[in-house]
C-alpha cells in the first residue's frame, strides 16, 4: 500500500489558542479531517499536475532533490553531488552512516511529534571540512492531492571551514489540501558558512508548518531567508543558537499575503556565547483580509558579552481588512551588549505615492516601485541574483504589478 490515512494521533495535545505561542494561529480547521500519507512514490491525483514544475528556479544552476508528497523522487533528483559532500535521502542510506542529531522538538510540540511519528524521508547532508560546495542544493517539496500530508526532516552538517547554500522550496497544486510539516536541523561548524533560503509557494489549502533549528559554532556564519510567496496558512518557526564565540547570523524574511491567507513567523535568536552578531529583518505587506503574526525572540545569555543584536519587523497594512500582530521579545542577561529592535505597522507612504504619481506613474506602477524598494533590503542579501529575481518575479506575477 502506498498511501494510508489517519486522523492525527499524538501523545502531546494539539496547540490551542490558550497557548501564547499559538494564540493568533489557530489550527482547529486542520484537526477535523483525516489525511493521507504516501509511503511510496506519489503519483498525485490523475497523474502529477504540469503546473507544478519539478525545478522551481530554472535559471539557477543547482543540484535538485525532489520530494513528492513527502516521498523522495530519484528520477527527478541530481544525486550524488560533488566530492566531499554526503547528500543522500535517509531512505537510501545505511542507518549507521546517517547523521543523527535532534533538538528534541518532537517532545515539546505536537507538530514535532507528528513529524517524528509519520516521517517519510528527508535529506541527510554532510559537507566535509573546508569543502565549498560548487552549486546550491535545491530541495523541492511538491504537494498534490486532497487532504495529503507530508513529513520531511532534513539534517545538515557543515564542517569546519566548509560552505554550503541550500534552498528549501515547497510548492503545491491549486487542488491540494492537507498539511506540510517540515523540519530542518543544521549545525554549522567553526568558520563555516551556511546560506539557507526557505521559500513557500503553495497553492490550494495546505497547512504549512516548518521548523528550522540551527546551531552555530565559533566564527560561523548563517545567512537565512524565509520568503512566503503564497500559502493559505503558513507558520515558519526558526531557532538559531549561537554556541561559539564570534558567530554571525543574518536572517531576513518577507511575506505579502492576499485574500484570507494567514502567515506566521516565529523566530528565536539565542546568543549563548560572546562576540556574536545577529541581524534580523522581516518585512511584510498585508493585503485583502489576510492575517499575520510576527514574534521575534532574542536571548542574550550571561556569557554572551559583546553581543550585537539587531531586529526589525516592518509591516504595511495595505487594505482595511488585513491585520498583523507583531511582537519583539528581548531577554538580555549580559551587560556589555548592543541590542536594537523595532516593530512597526503602517500604511503605504502616501506622500511618496503622490510624488510618484505626480510624475505620470500610475497608481499600480507606483505601488510596485514602492514594494520593490520595501523588499529590496531583504532580497539584496539572497545568495544568488537568479534566486532573488525569481522570487521578485513570482511576487510580481502574483500581485499583477
Amino acid at each position, binding site marked *: 500500500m502506498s498511501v494510508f490515512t489517519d486522523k492525527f494521533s499524538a501523545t502531546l495535545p494539539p496547540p490551542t489558542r490558550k497557548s501564547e505561542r499559538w494564540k493568533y494561529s489557530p489550527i482547529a480547521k486542520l484537526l477535523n479531517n483525516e489525511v493521507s500519507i504516501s509511503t511510496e512514490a506519489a503519483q498525485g491525483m490523475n497523474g502529477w499536475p504540469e503546473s507544478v514544475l519539478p525545478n522551481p528556479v530554472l535559471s539557477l544552476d543547482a543540484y535538485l532533490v525532489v520530494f513528492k508528497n513527502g516521498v523522495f523522487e530519484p528520477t527527478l533528483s541530481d544525486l550524488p553531488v560533488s566530492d566531499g559532500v554526503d547528500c543522500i535521502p535517509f531512505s537510501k542510506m545505511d542507518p549507521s552512516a546517517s547523521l543523527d542529531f535532534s533538538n528534541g522538538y518532537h517532545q515539546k510540540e505536537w507538530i514535532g511529534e507528528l513529524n517524528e511519528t509519520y516521517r517519510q524521508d528527508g535529506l541527510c547532508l554532510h559537507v566535509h571540512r573546508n569543502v565549498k560546495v560548487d552549486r546550491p542544493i535545491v530541495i523541492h517539496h511538491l504537494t498534490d492531492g486532497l487532504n495529503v500530508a507530508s513529513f520531511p526532516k532534513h539534517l545538515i552538517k557543515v564542517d569546519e571551514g566548509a560552505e554550503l547554500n541550500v534552498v528549501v522550496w515547497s510548492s503545491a497544486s491549486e487542488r491540494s489540501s492537507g498539511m506540510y510539516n517540515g523540519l530542518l536541523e543544521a549545525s554549522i561548524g567553526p568558520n563555516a558558512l551556511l546560506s539557507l533560503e526557505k521559500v513557500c509557494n503553495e497553492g490550494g489549502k495546505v497547512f504549512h508548518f516548518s521548523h528550522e533549528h540551527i546551531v552555530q559554532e565559533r566564527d560561523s556564519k548563517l545567512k537565512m531567508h524565509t520568503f512566503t510567496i503564497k500559502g493559505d496558512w503558513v507558520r515558519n518557526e526558526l531557532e538559531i543558537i549561537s554556541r561559539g564565540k564570534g558567530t554571525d547570523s543574518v536572517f531576513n524574511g518577507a511575506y505579502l499575503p492576499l485574500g484570507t491567507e494567514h502567515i506566521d513567523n516565529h523566530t528565536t535568536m539565542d546568543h549563548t556565547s560572546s562576540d556574536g552578531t545577529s541581524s534580523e529583518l522581516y518585512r511584510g505587506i498585508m493585503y485583502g483580509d489576510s492575517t499575520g503574526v510576527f514574534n521575534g525572540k532574542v536571548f542574550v545569555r550571561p556569557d554572551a558579552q559583546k553581543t550585537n543584536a539587531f531586529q526589525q519587523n516592518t509591516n504595511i497594512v495595505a487594505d482595511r481588512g488585513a491585520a498583523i500582530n507583531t511582537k519583539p521579545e528581548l531577554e538580555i542577561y549580559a551587560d556589555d551588549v548592543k541590542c536594537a529592535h523595532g516593530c512597526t505597522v503602517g500604511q503605504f*507612504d*502616501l*506622500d*511618496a505615492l*503622490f*510624488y*510618484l*504619481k*505626480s*510624475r*505620470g*506613474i*500610475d*497608481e499600480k*506602477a*507606483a505601488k510596485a*516601485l*514602492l514594494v*520593490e*524598494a*520595501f523588499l*529590496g*533590503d531583504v532580497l539584496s542579501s539572497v545568495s544568488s541574483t537568479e534566486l532573488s529575481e525569481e522570487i521578485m518575479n513570482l511576487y510580481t506575477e502574483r500581485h499583477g504589478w
Partner: protein
Amino acid sequence: MLKINNLCAKVGDNEILKGLNLEVKPGELHAIMGPNGSGKSTLAAVLAGRDSYEVTGGTVDLDGVNLLDLEASDRAREGVFLAFQYPIEIPGVSNLNFMKAALNGKRAHKGQEPIKAKDFLAKVKECSSLVELDGRLRDRSVNEGFSGGEKKRNEIFQMAMLEPKLAILDETDSGLDIDALRVVSKGVNAMRSSERSFIVITHYQRLLEHIVPDFVHVLSNGKIVKSGGKELALELEEKGYDWLKEPSHDTSNV
C-alpha cells in the same frame, strides 16, 4: 491653456481655497506670491491632483481637459508638472528607475513605445547638465540624503526630463544658494517656450529678477487679491502684504 474658475478646496473642515480665478495662456509665466498659509501650496497640490484635498467647487480646464476629473498620474501625462516645495525622499527607488517609469508612463499614454536605453541615457545626460546635477545624485535613491538645494535641482532636472506643458514651481528658490539659484533659473529659462506655461510660487522678488514673469499675483486667504506686471513684485517687496489682505472671516487663519 489653463483656466481656473472659482476654485474652492478644503482639508477636513478647513477651507483653504475660496473661489480662486486664474488664466494662464501658452508661453506665459505667472508668479504667485502671498503670505505664509495663504493657500499657494494647496493650489499647486490641487492642480497636481493630490487627493487629500477636497475640491468643493469650481473648474480647472487645461486645453479642453477637465483636470479635476483626472488622477494625479493622468494629469502628469496630460502635461502638468509640480516641482514640490518639499520634495519627497523615497529610499530604495533609484532616481533613474523613477524617471524611466515616469517617461514610459507618459509615452504609453501617447501610444508610444518605451524609450530606448540609449536615448534615455542621452536625455538624462542632457537634462542633468542643464541644472548641473551631479551624476552621483542621479544614481542614488530618489532625494534620499540630498541636501535641500540638491532636492530642488532634482525637481528641475525631472521637469526637464518630462517636458511638461504646464510647470508649477512651488518655492523652488527656497534653500538655494546664490549660485544654485542662478543655475536653476537658467534651467527654467532654457525651458521657456511659446507652448509651455509656468506658475512660479515664490516669496522673493530676487527669483523674479532671474526668471522674469509676465504677471504677478497675490494670493491671500484663498483668493487672488491683486494681479499686476512684474513691477508688482517690487512693490510687495517694499510694502509687504498688509495693505492687500482681505479681512478674514475665519479667525483661526489670521
